[in-house]
């Protein structure tokens, strides 16, 4: 099973700051790179996703940056809010299967 490595494991950011979460993958045969957000006691939910033919995608305060040559992609949360406190998972898709990173627990302090 292909792996995707996610960092950091946990992140504390002040309200209004920028949260950055990074993921690196090992194989180039992936065609879809989603990020999922999970609140305590809930199931993960799709936040934003990018295809490998695009280097950046922005939706509101959330931006994915994708570096195909480095096999890395990252999630930036601008103007982080306490309501953004959750666990974030990057994932890679190969065929019919999503493989998730280890998750990043984000805490945004008021």
């Amino acid at each position, binding site marked *: 099973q292909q792996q995707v490595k996610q960092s950091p494991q946990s992140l504390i950011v002040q309200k209004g700051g920028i949260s950055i979460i990074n993921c690196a993958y090992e194989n180039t045969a992936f*065609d879809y790179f989603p990020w999922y957000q999970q609140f305590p006691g809930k199931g993960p939910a799709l936040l934003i*996703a990018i295809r490998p033919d695009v280097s950046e995608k922005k939706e509101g305060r959330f931006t994915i940056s994708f570096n195909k040559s480095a096999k890395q992609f990252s999630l930036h949360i601008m103007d982080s809010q306490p309501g953004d406190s959750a666990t974030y998972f990057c994932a890679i898709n190969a065929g019919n299967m999503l493989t998730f990173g280890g998750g990043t627990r984000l805490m945004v302090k008021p």
Partner: protein
Amino acid sequence: DTAVSQTPKYLVTQMGNDKSIKCEQNLGHDTMYWYKQDSKKFLKIMFSYNNKELIINETVPNRFSPKSPDKAHLNLHINSLELGDSAVYFCASSLGSGRATQYFGPGTRLLVL
């Protein structure tokens, strides 16, 4: 309206017992999944069904047996439960696979004593 629902929400049982978790989706999706999330939050796919047919079976012990009676339901039966089976089990569904968005249920928290 509940999109993906799971029952039960909590399950506490003794080692060696057999238990089932049920999942239903009302999104009209044709693909359903079971994931296991361990205590460290690591999320790993176990099974995937498309139109009631098994398409992914990831190195899961034979004690775990999924069953899909129709496209809207995917159940998970676990025999001879072990301590290491304690985890949160998530059901998910999507329309097609690949880049299709997966919609997750609320999870079933299983504790094996």
